[in-house]
């Protein structure tokens, strides 16, 4: 099949940030910080242009509403373990990878642009852009991975870039602690992912001979390998693999998928692995917008979507995805109600929306895959409005030099562009027609309802109300009312290089919902879900309006109502404000139980028994040597005595043996 130029050269999209990362990091950064920013930004801009062209060419090839094939226009052999077990690297082009490429390059390009203004004059300006490019390359490499090994490698690479960027202000102890926390928690989760990959790979290789011949090979492509998604997602493999029992009534397939999901949950910060994400806000705000809101944290959702047929074949794993997602969305939304740090509210809101996406995947099935489309749709719209919220918050923080919303206030007149775009994003996330969030949230709710997950439907509906409430809470407190602190009085609008990305994202947040997403991204045959389902849209809008109204009642004007409500809830309020003490629970488990009861005895054993054994052998040989060196007196007659005595003893022994 003859592909268009960009499809054939799709490898350029991840390659451009990689080249620019090397160039900026090695050569440009030491010479000129200014040019480091410009080169880094323009390379991402070029990659974004390529991604749009790729989308255009792809959907010209497979018009909307039709079956869309996944293509591997470029791949090469990377690791050859033995014949029949080869890992390739390559570029996979299919609807969801294109959506992610468009989202990643767009948001990343805008964040790069915004950072030129935001990071102006900071030390480490060049280093910052180097890391951002590294992240963008890793994320694009993850998105286009045609096999699970390439995805795992890029998965770790985005983890490293996230670590580097959270700890960007490495002279600040809290940032260092946050970066370590993020790395350790996600790495811990990745352990599950890796074991899952190994289980899949082991059985995939074992079943390969019997299953693979049934699968058609693409002309011109490299031969199918056991790690390829196309093989792992094939019904033939899943049927063979799913019939192997494991333990506790789970099939081996479910065990493998749950392990893979552990990695996805770590990266997408699902409860109870969510603790790293709020702390990750220690990084520069544009980084939070790019990595910890729009792109990296959706990698877990993307992985689940990428392996969706495998998850769907294992009903247990899919149920876990649905309920963990639903619970996280509720849990995080409740915490977000009480936080005072603007970035933390947004972080918990991200958690909640990620929970939505996971839940949407969990409630769908191969036959009825509305949730799959809805999840990707929400990922798409959420990337724009959440990046916009973070960038807007960044502009506010840049102006007033604090994260505390109670130190802000009255910024609507001082920062009109930021205010307007922030309002658009807030309306979008609250799900008000015609903004983007309305459409994607509507599909998620419809998917939950049609999948007969009634409990999850009502949870999601309730969360929609909560979302509207806490988002408008920070909106009112930040932008309305009077100035509460000195910084807010002298705030002024950000420069154009920062407001331009805000305006572009504002437009996207407003109109992205009108994209007929289901026509382009669907599992298998086309899902018919045109238009708005009023049975869902009406209660959702009512919930959002109720949230907004309640928020306005408490926060639109300066009043004691909020404080009174907090006093009314008393202890419950404090528990929520302390994030349900999950962090404290982790600290208790790690410090009191793991450190005291496991690590200390092991350390003692290591120091005293293992090291002691080694030291004992060294000490005994050394002592033996120093003691026996006293035998060397230098007195020839003493030696002679030993020699003569020894000869006598020896002769006696020989005599005794022979007689």
């Amino acid at each position, binding site marked *: 099949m003859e592909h268009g130029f960009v499809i054939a050269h799709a490898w350029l999209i991840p390659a451009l940030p990689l080249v620019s990362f090397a160039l900026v990091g090695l050569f440009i950064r030491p010479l000129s910080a200014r040019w480091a920013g410009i080169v880094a930004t323009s390379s991402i801009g070029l990659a974004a242009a390529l991604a749009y062209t790729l989308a255009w060419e792809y959907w010209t090839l497979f018009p909307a509403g039709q079956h869309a094939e996944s293509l591997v226009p470029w791949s090469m052999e990377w690791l050859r373990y033995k014949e029949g077990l080869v890992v390739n690297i390559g570029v996979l082009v299919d609807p969801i990878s294109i959506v992610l490429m468009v989202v990643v390059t767009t948001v990343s390009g805008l964040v790069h642009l915004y950072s030129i203004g935001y990071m102006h004059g900071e030390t480490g300006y060049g280093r910052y852009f180097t890391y951002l490019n590294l992240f963008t390359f890793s994320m694009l490499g993850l998105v286009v991975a045609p096999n699970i090994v390439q995805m795992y490698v890029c998965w770790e690479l985005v983890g490293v870039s996230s670590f580097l960027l959270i700890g960007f202000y490495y002279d600040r102890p809290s940032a260092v602690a946050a970066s370590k926390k993020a790395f350790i928690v996600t790495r811990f989760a990745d352990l599950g992912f890796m074991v899952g990959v190994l289980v899949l790979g082991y059985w995939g290789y074992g079943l390969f001979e019997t299953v693979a011949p049934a699968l058609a090979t693409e002309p011109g492509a490299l031969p199918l390998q056991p790690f390829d998604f196309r093989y792992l997602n094939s019904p033939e493999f899943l049927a063979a693999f799913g019939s192997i029992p494991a333990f506790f009534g789970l099939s081996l397939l479910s065990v493998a998928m749950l392990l893979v999901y552990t990695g996805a949950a770590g990266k997408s910060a699902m409860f109870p692995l969510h603790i790293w994400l709020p702390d990750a806000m220690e990084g520069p705000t544009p980084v939070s917008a790019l990595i910890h809101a729009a792109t990296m944290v959706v990698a877990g959702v993307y992985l689940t979507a990428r392996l969706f047929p495998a998850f769907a074949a294992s009903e247990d794993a899919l149920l876990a995805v649905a309920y963990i997602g639903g619970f996280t969305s509720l849990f995080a939304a409740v915490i977000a109600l009480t936080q005072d740090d603007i970035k933390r509210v947004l972080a918990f809101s991200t958690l909640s929306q990620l929970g939505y996406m996971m839940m949407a995947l969990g409630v769908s099935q191969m036959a009825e895959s509305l949730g799959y489309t809805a999840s990707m749709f929400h990922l798409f719209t959420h990337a724009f409005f959440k990046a916009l919220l973070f960038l807007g918050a960044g502009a506010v923080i840049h102006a007033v030099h604090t994260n505390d919303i109670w130190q802000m206030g009255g910024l609507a007149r001082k920062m009109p562009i930021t205010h307007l775009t922030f309002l658009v994003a807030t309306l979008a996330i609250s799900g008000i027609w015609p903004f983007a969030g309305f459409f994607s949230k509507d599909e998620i709710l419809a998917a939950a309802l049609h999948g007969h997950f009634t409990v999850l439907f009502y949870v999601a509906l309730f969360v929609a109300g909560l979302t509207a409430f806490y988002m408008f809470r920070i909106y009112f407190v930040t932008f309305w009312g009077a100035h509460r602190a000195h910084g807010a009085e002298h705030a002024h609008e950000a420069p154009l290089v920062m407001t331009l990305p805000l305006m572009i994202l504002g437009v996207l947040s407003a109109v992205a919902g009108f994209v007929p997403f289901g026509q382009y991204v669907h599992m298998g045959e086309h899902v018919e879900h045109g238009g708005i389902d009023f049975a869902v849209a009406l209660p959702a809008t009512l919930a959002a309006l109720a949230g907004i109204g309640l928020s306005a009642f408490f926060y639109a004007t300066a009043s004691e109502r909020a404080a009174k409500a907090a006093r009314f809830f008393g202890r419950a309020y404090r528990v929520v404000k302390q994030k349900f003490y999950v962090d404290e629970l982790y600290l208790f488990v790690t410090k009191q139980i793991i450190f005291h009861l496991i690590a200390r005895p092991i350390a003692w054993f290591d120091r005293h028994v293992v090291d002691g054994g080694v030291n004992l052998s060294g000490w005994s040989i050394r002592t033996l040597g120093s003691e026996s060196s006293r035998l*060397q*007196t*230098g*007195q*020839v*007659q003493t030696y*002679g*005595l030993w020699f*003569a005595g020894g000869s006598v003893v020896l002769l006696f022994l020989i005599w005794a043996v022979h007689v």
Partner: protein
Amino acid sequence: MTTFLAAQTPGLTHWIVLSGVLFAIGVYGLLTRRNAIGVLMSIELMLNSAALNFVVFNHFRAPAGVDGQIMAIFVIAVAAAEAVIAMAIFVAIYRRRGTLDVTSMDALKD
């Protein structure tokens, strides 16, 4: 007594015992003398006991040959050469240190 001795011709065993006694005296002297010349003399005793063994075995076990006698002459020659070198070394040591006490000669230890 004299007649008894004259009547008795010493045999192989007697000569070997004499040689053993000489060797033992030599070993004792080697290990106990503090003067280097005494040590050298003890070594001469041990060498001579060995030479005596050669001659005795030659006489009693292989009277036709002369191998043992030749070996004895060799031993005497070697002992003479050894004595010359040793005495030269002793003279040098005495000039340098003023003593020939072997217990003070432990420089090879270091």
